[in-house]
């Protein structure tokens, strides 16, 4: 583990329905850095994000996840969240019957250091909604119900800015968004970085969302293996040459297992 890593994934393997998805994954993210996890469709990028967050759909079959100095491999998802880990969902769920504002208030109520008086809470979320160019009427609507894809991603960004996690894993937050919504998401990421000195692990296979970010490290995943790592220059390389160059590299990884 890198001495000062905020997130340190070591030799992590995970499966679903007895099918191994992640194979001996190593990955370190230092505080304040922006990391990008790239790879072709089906590489296991989202799985890594979900496993880091403790999704019970997956079984960790080996290795460890250390976050902020604590081994969280066995920790429940809600505790990981309260420890400062955040996962922005590729497809946020709908919760009928629960107004967005009630949901947001509950997320804060579970964090003793973030509890707010109601007036302050309403003021805060209205300001955030305004900043993200989000119609405030959505705050009283049922969570996710009838929201467009863009609105759902805005809600994800709103939560990111409200909860101020130590590390945010953004799972294809850019997928399926038009130019305007993409710009709002980028704006959210910038604000998170500026205000919280936030740490980002961005999962994507599209380089467009990275254009305005200073990326510190790029990791490439193919078939559940981390097959390459490097600095931000890898992004333009991938943009130009695609992932073809990495296909087959996972065979070498498997040979070492």
């Amino acid at each position, binding site marked *: 583990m890198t001495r000062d890593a905020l997130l340190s994934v070591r030799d992590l393997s995970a499966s679903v329905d007895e099918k191994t998805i992640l194979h001996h994954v190593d990955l370190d993210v230092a505080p304040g850095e922006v990391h990008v996890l790239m790879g072709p469709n089906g590489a296991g990028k989202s799985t890594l994000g979900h496993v880091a967050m403790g999704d*019970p759909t997956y079984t960790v079959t080996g290795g460890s996840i250390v976050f902020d100095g604590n081994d969280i491999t066995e920790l429940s998802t809600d505790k990981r969240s309260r420890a400062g880990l*955040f996962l922005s969902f590729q497809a946020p769920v709908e919760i*009928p019957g*629960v107004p967005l504002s009630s949901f947001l208030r*509950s997320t804060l*109520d579970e964090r003793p250091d973030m509890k707010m008086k109601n007036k302050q809470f309403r003021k805060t979320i209205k300001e955030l909604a305004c900043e993200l160019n989000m119609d405030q009427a959505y705050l009283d609507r049922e969570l996710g119900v009838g929201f467009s894809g863009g609105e759902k991603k805005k809600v994800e960004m709103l939560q990111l800015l409200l909860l101020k996690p130590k590390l945010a894993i953004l799972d294809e937050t850019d997928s399926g968004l038009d130019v305007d919504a993409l710009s709002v998401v980028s704006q959210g990421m910038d604000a998170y970085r500026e205000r919280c000195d936030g740490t980002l692990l961005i999962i994507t296979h599209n380089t467009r969302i990275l254009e305005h970010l200073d990326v510190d490290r790029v990791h490439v995943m193919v078939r559940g293996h981390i097959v390459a790592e490097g600095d931000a220059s890898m992004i333009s390389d991938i943009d130009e040459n695609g992932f073809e160059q990495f296909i087959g590299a996972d065979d070498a990884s498997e040979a070492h297992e």
Partner: protein
Amino acid sequence: MDAKTIQHVNAMPAPTWHRLHMNDTDVEIPAGLSVVHEVTTEIPAALAGAPDAFDAALAAEQVEWEKTHPEKTPEQRAEEERLRTEEEKTTYGGTAYSRYQIGADAIEEARSLARAFETGMGADAYAWMREVAGDPIVIAAPAGEPQEVAVRVAAVPDAVNVAAIDVVAAPNAEVTVVLSVDSPREGTGVTGTSLRVFAGTGARVHVVRTQTDDATFIDMDDAGLFTAENAFIDVRQTVLGGAKAYTGLAGDIRGTASRIDIDTRYLGHHEQQRDFNYTLRHHGEKTLCNITANGVLSGTSKKTYRGTIDLVRGCKGAVGQETETVLLADDGVVNQTVPVILCNEDDVVGNHGATIGHVRPEQMFYLASRGLSQEAAENMFVRAIMEQAAIDAPDEPSRDGVMRLGSHLLDNFEGFLDEEEA
């Protein structure tokens, strides 16, 4: 008062398979309760009605109704009989004729609006509630400016406290009836309202009932509605408290193009029981009804919902719709739902839909990823329905009741509305 069991409460008009144990329910009134009348009212003097106003209105409507629905002549009856097929005579007149069908036919044959009128909890519950309530509060709303009245029932420890209310809206009148049932004092007992509403031609009646009893009380909400031509009654019932809450509502949608809308919101948690029975009968042509029920159940609470839309012969062009959405926040809850569409007329529409479900694993993972444990998620569902009830409360006392109950159930609920309004 001795212990009493009121049987066959909230009975479905057309029973279903008895082993489901949901055709009706019994209400157990504990022994040792006294009968009290701690009811406050806010009714303008001009709206005080005569004791027999409801029955008189129904009798007057009977006369009008008969003008447009003359009794069949012997010749017409003979012709109808001649046209009945052999199959109709043997099937419908034989053993397949259910008790419900026989009863429904008898009521139609009697051609009496008074006899057809019913309340949702049934005759026995109605009789008992009217007896313990004493003289009804009678509200007679004249045409003109919209009026608002309020009747508030406060739960009294070791007592039965029930209000009987008759509302008669004159032709083209508009009146809002606010009913709030709350338990400001700790204890056990029974609260209730027994409501009859007559909406005259073109009248509009809005009923908003908010029940916020502590979980040591039993609440009974019995209502019967009647709509004349072009009349509209909407009822919003919010059931938030009470160990056991019984809600029965029956509506006779009699006048042409008249309408009844029901919007029910409820919460059940711990071991609470909720029992609903709605029966809306479309008699008039082009009549409309809409029943919407939304609830959250957690803990080991139990809920039974019966919703019957009866499209009676003669209601051509009628449209009835019922929709129920229930969120089951815990594996221990028991949820029973029977939506029924009875139809004895062509050229009508009857729809029902239900969305009933536990919190799915992907939903729970999403909530957990924002720091909510299973328990916190359940609290959030409770909070959501309480907050919505507070926001939508029709007046200050109703809102105070929601806030009082909410503050007992949830942390950081006090002051929610003060700041909301600030």
